[in-house]
């Protein structure tokens, strides 16, 4: 099954490009460390998911590029074509000249309806190219106007036009100290709207990735390109082919469906966080050795202690004692810093992953009480190493990972809303105070639900 990617706004297009790059370079890399047959299988599965074979010599990404100003798309298209390894379909993009001015209302209420037909036609064309459509993957930032506002509108359109398809939104959480002053408003409106039409939101926080670039990748002058490449690597580690069943004989055909099934048991809980281990500069790789027990141990502690990366993990945090469990899920027993999960997915890539002991992830004390531990945890594997890492593990988690960031954003937005600052910029385009209040209500509900896990 194939996934159609929709790249929205500057951020969405810049990241999308790095993602296809990462997927392609992984597939063409010689570091698969597995049999030729395995490699070919992997290659074919990846191709089917993300690329289409056309008359051109290079694979064509299954993507629709959307932006309200032309510079980024034009750059993205030309850089991709120059790589020689893959390209975008020349016709599969739509842009305007004006931009959205960082105004969610402009993106959602003006650009959205105005360009709905053209955009959905492009999506339809890409969908038709797929033998079997596995769903949609949209990439957008929350802070600006196009990715956020137009992105929310397009997601709604996707839901209306493809009611039975899976929709996964990849959402970029902006830096806390601001890239855009009204980013908290834009984020509030985006999240509350996406929650209605999307199946799940997979989140990357700029602050977190920035730290990874600084501390793990040891980059001195970090650029957005560096940040985007780490994000692309992490996404690749989730979306490259895997075997989802123990002893499975072929790569899973339905990655988005499988993801939703394992991680989103209840529509109130859609916020997914992503962790990946190990992360290091490429030139350190030859000097490093990895052991599965070590990786698993670190990854589990990252989950429990809500650590953003494998350095600086708080090893003091422990899961609560189950003996005194109360049926109600109120967290009087749980230590304050403990990150409670609803469901987790671990993905192992590389040598000798067959016998890895994942029992520590099945520990019921990690989870809320309302799912069976067997259902709450899943593992996908492949012996094929990813992106030059001999062994790597990824964790996609539906847990309290994003509770604090969400609470921060809503808090700041509320603070600003109380003074009515900038509201006139939104009402100008048809988003009223009432719409803000609806969004606040919706997100406070989500915060509350995640808090009492």
């Amino acid at each position, binding site marked *: 099954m194939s996934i159609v990617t929709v790249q929205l706004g500057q951020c969405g297009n810049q990241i999308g490009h790095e993602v296809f790059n990462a997927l392609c370079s992984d597939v063409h890399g010689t570091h698969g460390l597995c049999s030729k047959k395995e490699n070919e299988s992997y290659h074919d599965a990846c191709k089917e998911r993300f690329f289409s074979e056309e008359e051109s010599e290079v694979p064509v990404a299954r993507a629709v590029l959307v932006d309200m100003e032309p510079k980024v798309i034009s750059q993205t298209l030309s850089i991709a074509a120059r790589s020689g390894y893959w390209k975008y379909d020349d016709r599969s993009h739509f842009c305007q000249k004006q931009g959205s001015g960082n105004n969610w209302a402009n993106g959602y209420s003006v650009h959205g309806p105005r360009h709905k037909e053209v955009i959905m036609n492009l999506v339809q064309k890409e969908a038709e190219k797929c033998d079997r459509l596995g769903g949609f993957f949209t990439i957008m930032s929350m802070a600006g106007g196009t990715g956020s506002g137009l992105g929310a509108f397009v997601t709604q359109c996707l839901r209306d036009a493809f009611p039975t398809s899976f929709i996964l939104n990849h959402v970029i959480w902006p830096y806390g*100290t601001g890239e855009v002053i009204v980013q908290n408003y834009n984020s509030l409106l985006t999240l509350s709207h996406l929650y209605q039409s999307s199946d799940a939101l997979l989140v990357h926080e700029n602050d977190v990735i920035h730290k990874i670039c600084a501390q793990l990748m040891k980059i*001195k002058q970090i*650029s957005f390109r560096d940040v985007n490449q780490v994000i692309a690597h992490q996404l690749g580690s989730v979306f490259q082919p895997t075997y989802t069943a123990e002893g499975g004989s072929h790569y899973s055909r339905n990655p988005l469906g499988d993801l939703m099934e394992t991680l989103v048991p209840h529509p109130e809980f859609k916020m997914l966080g992503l962790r990946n281990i190990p992360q290091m500069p490429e030139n350190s790789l030859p000097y490093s050795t990895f052991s599965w027990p070590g990786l698993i141990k670190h990854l589990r502690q990252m989950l429990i202690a809500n650590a953003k990366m494998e350095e600086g993990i708080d090893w003091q945090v422990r899961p609560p004692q189950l003996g005194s469990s109360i049926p109600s899920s109120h967290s009087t027993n749980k230590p304050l810093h403990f990150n409670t999960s609803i469901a987790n997915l671990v993905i192992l890539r590389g040598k000798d992953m067959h016998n890895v002991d994942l029992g520590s992830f099945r520990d019921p004390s990690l989870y809320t009480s309302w799912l069976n531990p067997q259902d709450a945890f899943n593992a996908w594997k492949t012996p094929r190493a990813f992106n030059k890492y001999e062994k790597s593990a990824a964790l996609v988690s539906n847990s309290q990972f994003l509770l604090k960031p969400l609470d921060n954003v809503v808090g700041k937005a509320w603070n600003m809303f109380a003074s009515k600052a900038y509201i006139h910029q939104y009402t100008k385009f048809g988003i009223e105070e009432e719409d803000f209040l609806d969004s606040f209500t919706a997100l*406070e509900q989500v915060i509350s639900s995640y808090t009492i896990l």
Partner: protein
Amino acid sequence: PVSLPFAVGQCGNQVGCRFWDLALREHAAVNKKGIYDESLSSFFRNVDTRSGGDGPDIYKGKICSLKARALLIDMEEGVVNEILQGPLRDVFDSKQLITDVSGSGNNWAVGHKLYGYQYRENIVEKLRKTAEHCDCLQCFFIIHSMGGGTGSGLGTFVLNLLEDEFPEVYRFVTSVYPSGEDDVITSPYNSVLAMKELNEHADCVLPIENESLFDIVNKIHQMINSGKLGSTVKQNSLVTSSAGSTKTVQEKPFDAMNNIVANLLLNLTSSARFEGSLNMDLNEISMNLVPFPRLHYLVSSLTPLYTLADVNVPSRRLDQMFSDAFSRDHQLIQTDPKHSLYLACALLVRGNVQVSDLRRNIERLKPSLHFVSWNQEGWKTGLCSVPPVGHSHSLLALANNTCVKPTFIELKDRFMKLYKKKAHLHHYLHIDGMEQSCFSEAISSLSDLIEEYNELDATKGGPRTDPSRLKIAV
């Protein structure tokens, strides 16, 4: 997206002239292949002049003849004629000019009511024609001074007109405010009358004071002549310089100062014209820096003022650029933002600067700045890859800060000094359409604006109690 500048009056046109010159220089430095591209189209049309005169527009391919997208308006002919006889003559054609002979006599009413009425249709027609050639018109710029008659009066008339004819296009105004020692006695009247228009019809105003420009020019001269730096300064890197542009004549006294303003406009529009990892368009500036409709006066500062010839710039020097942007030496208006309240701040960086440099400097500078309680992290940032000519990087900081209040209070005081004595009022009141109420409304508008800033200042330093969050039923 296209930006359309209107130069109105003597000051406006002198600045405008420097602006076009430096814009050509900037694009020539970047555009090596002579292809007419998206970034050139922001300010210039590409016209096929082979058939002589004003041919059709060419949208792609080689550059044939570049024509500035602009309207030059002056009620005296001197400045505009000079432009048309100078090296920029081919950049403009007669259809973009609106001139008269007698000038406005430093009288806002003459500019606004008399000439406004007289030239309205002419202006609208030329405006429409110019706009027709624009693929996507995003923003109008008005460049003018506040103290005289044409720039101030006719300039604000044009502002009104733009709102009527093209309500969706943003209106940015670069206004040169008169100093206390201005030799035009009626400049307070003209300025306050113009302020009312700016309050009501502009999306963003960048106030500029000649004193600041003058100080910057002096500072540069001192630096060069003192030999303190021990290295040579790149001539074309001076923010005051016309080097490398078409100007071959001896520079006039105001040229250096006007170049600063021209550079301000170039930097302001750089991210809309050139690529970068975090684009910042003009509509984003308005969106992020204007929390309440009338509080749209932005303090600007430009750095660096010059670059040294040594090419290697360690990151400490880069950080110095950020510090400089928050020092009063680099501001284009004499205010004290550090001791007042920031409502919002934008940093537009050009050149080889990455997001980590931005973050590091924001973290470093934040503690010494006071931000309003509901916008504690109110930073808008942009990264444009293309630096200005002669520099490896540059920074334009725009601040919405209550520090403009004293400037407006002073202006109000100067106005009241004259108004109480009814000095020179008759020159205004005998113009058709001018009444006493124009004056009282104008001063009232200014007072209201000052009061809005007062209310915000009152919140400074107070105890922070965040409003309690929405409670929802569990």
